[in-house]
């Protein structure tokens, strides 16, 4: 996508201006990483590694640094855990969590559509009973995709909605149940506890299901995304990240820190508001795209 070519062309440009590897060049690369939201710590780590590797391998030509940088970034994104959704066995329950406005409800619509296309039986649960017209929003997505939505009234208990949806999923022999939750900032204790309660309901009522808890992160978010991931991980068993809004000019570099520091794989990326605007996250592709090597 065009978002990532931003960094790419900049790296290329920088490498062309500097023929030889020197301190100023490292500083330029540092700037590129920082402006892609990689964060100070992660950027320092990358630059340190780059400097050491360059020395070790006696690299003096600026353009040879690119391969090294790619190696390092791929390595940061490579973790033991799979980048694929764990939905091969039926039933599966997916819980979408995240801060306000990140793209949870929209991503549910897109994910539901993909599964429906694969011939799976999908059910949605309107677990956001708080935000104005959140239930209506999910219902419109349900209609678009052609799947049912289990809902209660606005203001109802989220755990009760999820409970009902699980019973319904069992009765209807559903393959994938996707649950929406209200956006919440991670520093709100009571709201985070409520999420913990939902997690317990799922454990207790649906032990046979494989579980995905997806943290939805807005790619436009800066360093706070790291804090979000940390705290959500403490409360629920986050199994992956959905990185949304990558169709803008934000680079989503914060993902580097999240996968390397927190060991959470990115699984999906959102690249628009349409039903088809969801892609699998493939680390190698992501890094290649950073450098414009995928076309």
């Amino acid at each position, binding site marked *: 996508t065009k978002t990532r070519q931003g960094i790419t062309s900049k790296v290329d440009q920088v490498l062309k201006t500097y023929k030889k590897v020197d301190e100023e060049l490292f500083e330029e690369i540092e*700037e590129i990483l*920082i*402006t*892609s*939201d990689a*964060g*100070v*710590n992660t950027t320092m780590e990358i630059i340190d590694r780059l400097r050491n590797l360059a020395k070790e391998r006696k690299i003096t030509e600026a353009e040879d640094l690119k391969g090294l940088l790619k190696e390092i970034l791929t390595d940061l994104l490579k973790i033991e855990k799979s980048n694929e959704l764990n939905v091969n066995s039926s039933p599966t329950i997916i819980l979408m969590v995240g*801060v*306000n*406005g*990140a*793209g949870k409800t929209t991503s549910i*619509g897109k994910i539901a559509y993909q599964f429906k296309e694969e011939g799976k039986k999908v059910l949605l649960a309107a677990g956001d009973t*708080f*935000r*104005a*017209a*959140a239930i*209506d*929003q999910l*219902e*419109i*997505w349900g209609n678009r995709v052609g799947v049912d939505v289990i809902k209660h009234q*606005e203001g109802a208990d989220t755990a009760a909605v999820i409970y009902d949806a699980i019973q319904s999923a069992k009765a209807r022999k559903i393959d994938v149940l996707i649950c929406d939750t209200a*956006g919440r*900032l*991670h*520093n*709100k204790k009571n709201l985070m506890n409520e999420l913990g309660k939902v997690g317990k309901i799922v454990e207790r009522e649906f032990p046979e299901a494989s579980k995905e808890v997806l943290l939805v992160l*807005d790619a*436009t*978010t*800066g*360093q*706070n*995304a790291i*804090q979000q991931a940390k705290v959500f991980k403490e409360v629920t068993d986050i199994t992956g990240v959905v990185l949304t*809004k990558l*169709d*803008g*000019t*934000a*680079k989503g570099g*914060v993902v580097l820190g999240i996968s390397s520091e927190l060991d959470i794989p990115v699984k999906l990326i959102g690249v628009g*508001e349409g039903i088809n605007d969801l892609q699998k996250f493939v680390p190698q592709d992501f890094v290649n795209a950073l450098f414009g090597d995928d076309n």
Partner: protein
Amino acid sequence: MVFEGLADKLQGALKKLKSKGKLTEKDVKEAMREVKLALLEADVNFKVVKDFINKVKERAIGAEVMESLTPGQHVIKIVNEELTALMGTTQSKLTFSSKPPTVYMLVGLQGAGKTTTGGKLGGYLKTMGKRPLLVAGDIYRPAAIKQLQVVGKQLDIPVFSMGDKISPVNIAKAGIEHANQHSNDVVIIDTAGRLHIDENLMDELEDIKKTVNPQEILLVVDAMTGQDAVNVAERFNEKLGIDGVILTKLDGDTRGGAALSVRAVTQKPIKFVGMGEKLSELEAFHPDRMASRILGMGDVLSLIEKA
């Protein structure tokens, strides 16, 4: 986190200095590195940080360290003063048209908080004795109109909508006519979230602006936004000439460096901050509080004030 200990680090970097005397270039340089890292970690844009650091350096080098302060505190004081100055030293209020209705238009990226903030603003104006009308100008997002209607109902404020088949430009125009007929003296237009690089949708906003000539176009910005805040603000401002900014979700634990970035590139005031999901949670913006929040050193500052 880097910034947690900024005050300590500054003290450390400058501890060799006695509490009297002048700050040298070398001392200041060391201290500025810590400040730079803290600002970057708070999501202030890279270029904005660079300019800022240069400005502070100029002022700090050669500055007399006051007797009551250690050099570290002194640098913090300078940094804070410059940061506050950059943020706008006074509170900036909403303006009203001499020929009602006063029209406000809320614009911004997807999910920033426009619809919620539109409601909050309506509620705030209502308590001021105004008779606001909310206009549902988002015809794209699923249930956006319903969302505004629910918000309006909670606040007991009328909502004007024409469904999602009429162009937002025409809806806005009809909304103003409706306000005229129903003696609503304030009109708040909700618009769909859009990317600053989406030419068609940016043109749409320009068309609304030309048609209804709003008193203020307010850019709604998520306080958690990272480095890209400058691109977003720059583009919206270029295209529309915004009049102010509303910073949302400041009830989170983000440092909110986006505030500084947006302010620096647009030179437009931040007028309000969103402090929660509830419709009453809108507050006036305080430049000084924001400055110490970004650097994470409110306590240090109150100590300095007492000294």
